[in-house]
């Protein structure tokens, strides 16, 4: 038994005990391995290229040689016409972006409140907790299109004084109502994944329940659910298109107006392209945050 080591050993993990580098040269066996590895990765790249060309080429040739291809490309891919109507669709997409910004900020706010209410254990909150639970269950369980229709046509039918009939505002409201329920659940799951020992540590330092939530639990929870929240943001951008059903002139509605004028569907394809221009980079970014977050959590697991 030796308890007297203590202080002296504390920095041993910082500086490497051996000195690498300098005169080292790869041995003959290592050089051989490297050559073999290089040959193998060259072969892998070749196989991947060949298989891609084969599969994608076959798909493409099936589509292009199909009997209806000529009419289809006329009605869906008439690019000259497409670029002619593009400004109008972009203008409409402005409405989608505007909707997204307004909805995302409100949803972040309401979703957080709902999640906090649902995870709170304070007795005074009990009725709100029940209400929040019912709210989330109901609005997560109804297709958003239905909620848009119900809000968009139901609220004006009430003929309440001072309540708007503006379809744009009603559409935003419906989107916020639905997405708050989704986001609340995502945030709540994040809060629940923070280990109880973190709360215990915070409380044992004298932090109140609220302080523990504010400084210890929420920062960790929100960081953890950032990737799924970004996923929801991508969905939100796309789903703002649903308000077109109320007559809001967004990208989809603009494309619809154009195509019903010309009986050509290229405007829809243009609208799809514009959505992709925004959603693909955002999806890539989401993937990257997710990967980083997994790496971070794995690193913590090792500690």
């Amino acid at each position, binding site marked *: *038994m030796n308890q007297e080591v203590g202080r002296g050993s504390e920095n041993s993990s910082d500086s490497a005990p051996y000195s690498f580098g300098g005169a080292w040269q790869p041995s003959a066996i290592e050089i051989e391995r490297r050559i073999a590895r290089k040959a193998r990765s060259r072969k892998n790249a070749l196989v991947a290229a060949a298989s891609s060309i084969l599969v994608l080429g076959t798909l493409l040739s099936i589509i292009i040689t199909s009997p209806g291809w000529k009419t289809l490309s006329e009605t869906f891919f008439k690019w000259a016409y497409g670029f002619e109507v593009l400004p109008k669709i972009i203008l409409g997409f402005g409405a989608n972006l505007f909707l997204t910004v307004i909805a995302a900020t409100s949803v972040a706010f309401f979703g957080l409140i709902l999640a906090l209410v649902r995870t709170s254990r304070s007795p005074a909150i009990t009725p709100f907790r029940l209400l929040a639970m019912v709210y989330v269950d109901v609005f997560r369980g109804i297709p958003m299109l239905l909620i848009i229709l119900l809000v968009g046509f139901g609220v004006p039918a009430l003929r309440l004084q001072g309540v708007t009939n503006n379809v744009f505002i009603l559409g935003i409201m419906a989107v916020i109502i639905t997405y708050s329920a989704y986001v609340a659940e995502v945030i709540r799951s994040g809060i629940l994944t923070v280990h109880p020992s973190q709360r215990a540590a915070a409380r044992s*330092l004298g932090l109140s329940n609220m302080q523990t939530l504010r400084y210890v639990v929420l920062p960790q929870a929100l960081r953890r659910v950032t990737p799924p929240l970004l996923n929801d943001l991508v969905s939100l951008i796309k789903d703002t298109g649903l308000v077109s059903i109320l007559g809001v002139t967004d990208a989809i509605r603009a494309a619809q107006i154009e195509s019903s004028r010309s009986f050509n569907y290229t405007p829809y394809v243009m609208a799809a392209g514009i959505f992709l221009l925004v959603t693909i980079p955002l999806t890539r970014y989401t993937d990257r945050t997710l990967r980083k977050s997994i790496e971070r959590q794995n690193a913590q697991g090792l500690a």
Partner: protein
Amino acid sequence: MSIPVLALEKVRKAFGSEVVLEDISITVPDHTATVFIGASGSGKSTLLRCINLLEQIDDGVIRLDGQDISDVSVDPDEIRRKLGMVFQSFNLFPHVSVVENIILAPMRVHGKSRDEAIVEALELLTRFGLREKAEQYPDRLSGGQQQRVAIIRSLAVKPRLLLLDEITSALDPVLVNEVLSTVRDLKEYGMTMLLATHEMGFAKQVADEVCFLEHGRILEWGKPEEILENPKKAQTKEFLKRVHEAGRL
């Protein structure tokens, strides 16, 4: 005789029908270290958590500096401000740096300014040889370093009493020593401590009193040389023998 820092009178704690603590009565005078030993599940950790009011006791009284802290009108946050607790699993906050871990409670609970809190935190880190880790995140530290930061974090609020719950159980033998040497330093500074540990050699060095727990009861309580070298009870002997066989003594 002056009032002890901590006094437990006939404390009882049960989880459902399972009794984990029964008839626990001890006193802890100022500037002393009391060490709880006993097998896993003997109630050591639960006892510390009860003192910290993380668990509610079912009977008995806990007094901190004479004040009954088991009274229902007592605000647990108020009490916890006076107590420090270090856990087996470190429980550092992974989302902030070492120094942010340490200044959180001084700033938010004790109302210190950020600058003041940082100065004090850096002083403590320097004293315990961790100054250069101040800006690092916990996951960049070794287990021993993390546990020492956890100790410093609990010291930063200048606790009246420090509760150390098997703080070396999650560490490999080399890292155990650096943490134990930190605790020995605390002892020299006169910190009043309550420890649960499996390190008998360490218990002998640091303890003023040793308490042997079995099935939630105190079987023996006394000076470390009495309990660890000349135990009177058969169960204590048996326990120490098993620990000895496991190579911990």
